[in-house]
């Protein structure tokens, strides 16, 4: 909103600037290249600006911009750099907290760990580059986010990535999946930062528009935190790192458009990463910070020199003057426009301390990395770009970085919501009410072989006698195996074994072993837990719930390792924001997330919005991805998912929900019917908080041996994973569930007590706020007591055994399967053999 007073001020400035206007070189103002070439399209249109934005620029400058200036505005005012569509919504996020040292607005958020150390974190999307060139797109995504952490003066200590692809049996999706994974590996492994966690989902919605969100976490001593500010006038401005070429020009603009059929042809926009250079940049910058030579550092990401200079100057209220003749170039004949917009990788803008120029150059020389003094900090608030004596561009830094006109979006409720909600998962699955199904199973078991397949409670199934033919397995055992081999649930060792997840000697819970990665912080006795989570299906079916669940599940994952959730960062991946339906989804996702962050006490420290994730009109699910940081106060209390001791009690913290509603949008529904529909599970954030506090307190009192949250695939899949991840000799469980009506605890709310319950839902429903824990039988009363004081249901549901998962409900066996059989399904989906098969030829292809 521009008040008239703002306008006057700006007019005044513009007039003053008018005096220097004649000194800025005429590169064809107001005409643009298009018209020079005889086309009728105006230059601003060609660069993706709107007419209103162009008029705003003319007003700010008090004259027509030249081609270079217009290019600078076009990238800085692109959605990717300016958040012009999302800004007003993001204000909903809580950003304050006792541990938050730096919130949104800098290169990364900073959270206090203890008196001396702080954690730095940020995540960013690289969706569009990945769609065009998966290896380099992912590699440069890693490089960029690592430099954001570096810009805070922090040593990068962990990378996580959240990936979305189409079904892996589709050749194109398989190609993208393999390319992205090797790109992350190729870059992350080389720079010596462990890739410790993340997630991979597969769904048709991402087939033509994959998502690649990368998160980086760093550690910094609190008194060494660097700020990306050009705060002292006269300070030298250095460009450190690689030389500048034509790569990636207009990458930011590219990220702010839908992908079309000709996206393959936009390959020149994709940059090539040089992880070796990045490794040198990391060591160089950290040494410069440590030696105290630095005032500010900024990564050169999207919009390269333009954004880094404009942002550092705007934050400090200063200006910067640079000389393009000083910029080391990789190609000859580059124009000012190209140099200012180049997105060549592995470059950092370093604002040095006056008088330290020689020392800075010496550090760079020793590391063998390029270092050019390209300009100085000024007091006029202008970003002045010269080439020798000629002024090529002269623009207020704040105008570029902060004055983008906000786009007030239209919101419209998508019609699909009512349609999807009207579909009942129970009838789609043909599920029968629990009591009648159990009765049926019982009689079938008796008539079949004399040996009761549905033994009464108390006669454990013998794993050795277990039939190995799948058709002989009880029906829900087969369903379980099917879920375990579904791409989204299946073991991802094939992925994370390609990442060096151990370098730096901190990884205390290895990938796959726990609900979150756990890294100890040397010398503190503490550890940090990190996870990235987001279920696009939920957000599609119910954006507000989906947003809240993304935060809650991330927090629950962190809690399941014994960590206290403290802060989040996020990537919000959405379709075209110019469509009202997208903004309706967006506003609700943000609202859900904000509410969950508020209630769970995890403020937002920064993040990234990626719009235009649709190709040829096919949008992705609205996909909020939450990067969560948790703190484990004593690293010895960390937990992983797998069972650790035979004879331990298996307990469920949270409700044992058998309602049909928890099957909406579930993986089980998708696996059985191929449909993503229904109303997804709802979350009660108050219950969620109680469940998390119970688990955390129990972990901190040393009661728990393992913990694993219930997510995709429900309780059955959670239990199966606990078995498969278990230590030798404790890789099984006997679970006895009571149907909601027979259970004395009345896990469902009183008013719902008459609601019908379903075996499918008890086993595979994705009701929220549930964690499966194990503990010594003697400690069960203590856990129940914690549950009582925190107000969360705690139910003992079974025991850890040596092998095999056996689940009965009210005494009737519903699942009985050996751990080896489960592993075959779970680990076989993405093992070497499966991945070397041609897409579509796997035993699991549908």
């Amino acid at each position: 909103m521009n008040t008239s007073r703002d306008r006057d001020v700006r007019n005044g400035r513009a007039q003053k600037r008018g005096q220097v206007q004649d000194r800025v070189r005429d590169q064809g103002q107001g005409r643009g290249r298009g018209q020079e070439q005889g086309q009728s399209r105006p230059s601003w249109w060609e660069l993706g600006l709107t007419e209103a934005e162009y008029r705003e620029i003319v007003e700010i400058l008090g004259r027509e911009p030249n081609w270079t200036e217009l290019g600078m505005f076009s990238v800085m005012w692109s959605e990717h750099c300016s958040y012009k569509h999302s800004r007003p919504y993001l204000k909903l996020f809580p950003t304050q907290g006792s541990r938050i040292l730096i919130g949104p607005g800098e290169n990364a958020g900073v959270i206090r760990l203890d008196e001396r150390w702080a954690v730095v974190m940020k995540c960013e999307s690289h969706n569009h580059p990945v769609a065009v060139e998966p290896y380099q797109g992912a590699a440069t995504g890693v490089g960029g986010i690592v430099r954001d952490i570096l810009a805070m003066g922090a040593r990068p200590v962990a990378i996580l990535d959240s990936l979305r692809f189409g079904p892996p049996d589709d050749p194109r999706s398989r190609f993208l999946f393999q390319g992205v994974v090797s790109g992350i590996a190729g870059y992350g492994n080389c720079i010596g930062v462990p890739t410790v966690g993340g997630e991979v989902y597969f769904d048709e919605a991402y087939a033509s528009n994959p998502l690649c969100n990368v998160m980086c976490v760093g550690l910094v001593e609190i008194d060494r935190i660097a700020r990306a500010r050009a705060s002292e006038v006269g300070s030298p401005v250095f460009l450190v790192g690689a030389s500048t070429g034509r790569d990636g020009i207009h990458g930011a603009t590219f990220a702010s458009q839908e992908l079309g059929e000709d996206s393959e042809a936009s390959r020149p926009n994709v940059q090539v990463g040089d992880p070796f250079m990045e490794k040198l940049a990391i060591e160089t910058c950290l040494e410069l910070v440590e030696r105290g030579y630095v005032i500010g550092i900024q990564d050169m990401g999207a919009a390269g020199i333009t954004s880094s200079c404009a942002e550092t100057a705007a934050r400090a209220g200063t200006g910067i003057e640079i000389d393009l003749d000083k910029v080391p170039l990789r190609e000859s004949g580059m124009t000012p426009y190209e140099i200012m917009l180049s997105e060549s990788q592995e470059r950092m803008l370093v604002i040095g301390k006056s008088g330290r120029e020689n020392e800075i150059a010496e550090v760079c020389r020793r590391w063998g990395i390029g270092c050019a003094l390209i300009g100085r900090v000024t007091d006029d608030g202008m970003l002045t770009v010269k080439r020798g004596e000629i002024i090529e561009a002269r623009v207020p830094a704040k105008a570029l970085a902060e004055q983008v006109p906000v786009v007030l979006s239209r919101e419209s409720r998508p019609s699909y919501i009512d349609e999807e909600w009207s579909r009942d998962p129970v009838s789609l699955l043909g599920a029968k009410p629990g009591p009648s199904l159990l009765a049926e199973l019982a009689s079938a078991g008796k008539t079949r072989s004399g040996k009761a397949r549905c033994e009464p409670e108390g006669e454990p199934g013998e794993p050795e006698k277990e039939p190995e033919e799948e058709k002989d397995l009880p029906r829900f055992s087969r369903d379980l195996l099917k879920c375990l081999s579904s791409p989204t649930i299946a073991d991802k060792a094939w992925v994370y074994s390609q990442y060096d997840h151990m370098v730096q000697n901190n990884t205390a819970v290895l990938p796959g072993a726990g609900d979150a990665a756990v890294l100890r912080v040397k010398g503190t006795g503490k550890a940090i837990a990190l996870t990235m989570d987001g279920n696009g299906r939920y957000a599609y079916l119910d954006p507000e719930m989906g947003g809240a669940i993304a935060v809650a599940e991330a927090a629950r994952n962190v809690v399941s390792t014994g960590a206290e959730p403290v802060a989040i960062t996020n990537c919000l991946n959405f379709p075209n924001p110019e469509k009202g339906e997208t903004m309706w989804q967006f506003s609700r996702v943000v609202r859900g997330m904000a509410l969950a962050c508020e209630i769970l006490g995890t403020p937002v420290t920064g993040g990234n919005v990626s719009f235009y994730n649709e190709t040829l009109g096919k949008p992705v699910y609205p996909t909020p991805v939450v990067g969560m940081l948790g703190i484990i106060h004593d690293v010895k209390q960390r937990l992983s998912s797998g069972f650790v001791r035979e004879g331990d009690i298996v307990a469920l913290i949270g409700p044992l929900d058998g309602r049909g509603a928890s099957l909406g949008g579930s993986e089980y529904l998708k696996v059985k019917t191929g449909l993503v529909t229904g109303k997804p599970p709802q979350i009660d954030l108050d219950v969620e908080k109680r469940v998390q506090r119970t688990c955390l307190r129990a972990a901190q009192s040393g009661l728990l041996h393992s913990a694993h949250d219930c997510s995709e695939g429900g309780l059955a899949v959670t239990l199966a994973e606990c078995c498969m991840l278990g230590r030798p000799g404790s890789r099984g469980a006997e679970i006895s569930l009571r149907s909601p009506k027979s259970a004395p605890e009345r896990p469902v709310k009183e008013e719902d007590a008459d609601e019908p319950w379903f075996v499918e839902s008890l086993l595979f429903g994705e009701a929220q706020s549930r964690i499966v824990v194990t503990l010594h039988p003697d400690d069960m009363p203590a856990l129940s007591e914690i549950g009582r004081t925190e107000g969360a249901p705690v139910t003992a549901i079974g025991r850890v055994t040596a092998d095999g998962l056996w689940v009965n409900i009210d005494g009737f066996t519903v699942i009985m399967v050996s751990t080896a059989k489960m592993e075959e399904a779970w680990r076989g989906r993405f093992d070497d053999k499966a991945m070397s098969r041609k897409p579509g030829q796997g035993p699991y292809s549908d």
Partner: protein
Amino acid sequence: MKFGIVVFPGSNCDQDCYYAIRDILGCDVDYIWHTVTDLRGFDCIILPGGFSYGDYLRTGAIARFSPVMKAVKDFADGGGLVLGICNGFQILLEAGFLPGAMLRNKGLRFLCKYVHLRVENNKNPFTCLFEEHEVIRMPIAHFDGNYYADSRTIEALEARGGVVFRYSDEKGGIAPETNPNGSVGNIAAVINEAGNVLGMMPHPERCVEELLGGEDGRRLFESIVSWFSGRRGVGS
């Protein structure tokens, strides 16, 4: 005794080795910049893992020409202990300290995981605290760990007991299925004829405390210390 850890541009396990030796073993240790040519005062030189010079040409191919490598050669010729880990092993191969070369892993992808190793030779400074044929666990993390040498070289190597570790299963079984990268004869570590230069693909510095999933790597470093103090005790 004093350890020295060489830092090449692109080394990324240098700090982990430093941590293992100083913080876990409590030994004296210093970094050695790749341009250094004087190694006096060091008793054991470690070439750490990483991607020296990006490993763009071949793994270790450029690092071997660093000024420090000439000094390391003299150091080794004088009987000094040299341990090359992962990229360090690749550099030792390129520099001709040890026979053979590394090919890409047979699966054509980077592999990071704990593997089992069988100790084939414990009569050297690096493994003297292990039992012969003991099975231990250490992580690997490499793309080019597929050890290769022609059959004559392999025969000679085997004949003199030059193989120190082999990839095995948890019971010590050696088979193609227990070979993560396609190495000839499941070879994971090789020692020179004089017995003072060891190259190994697994990372001992990554398993020096229970928190990291194992402590077998610590025993390798302790072997070096124990051998060294023993030698000094006996020799002087």
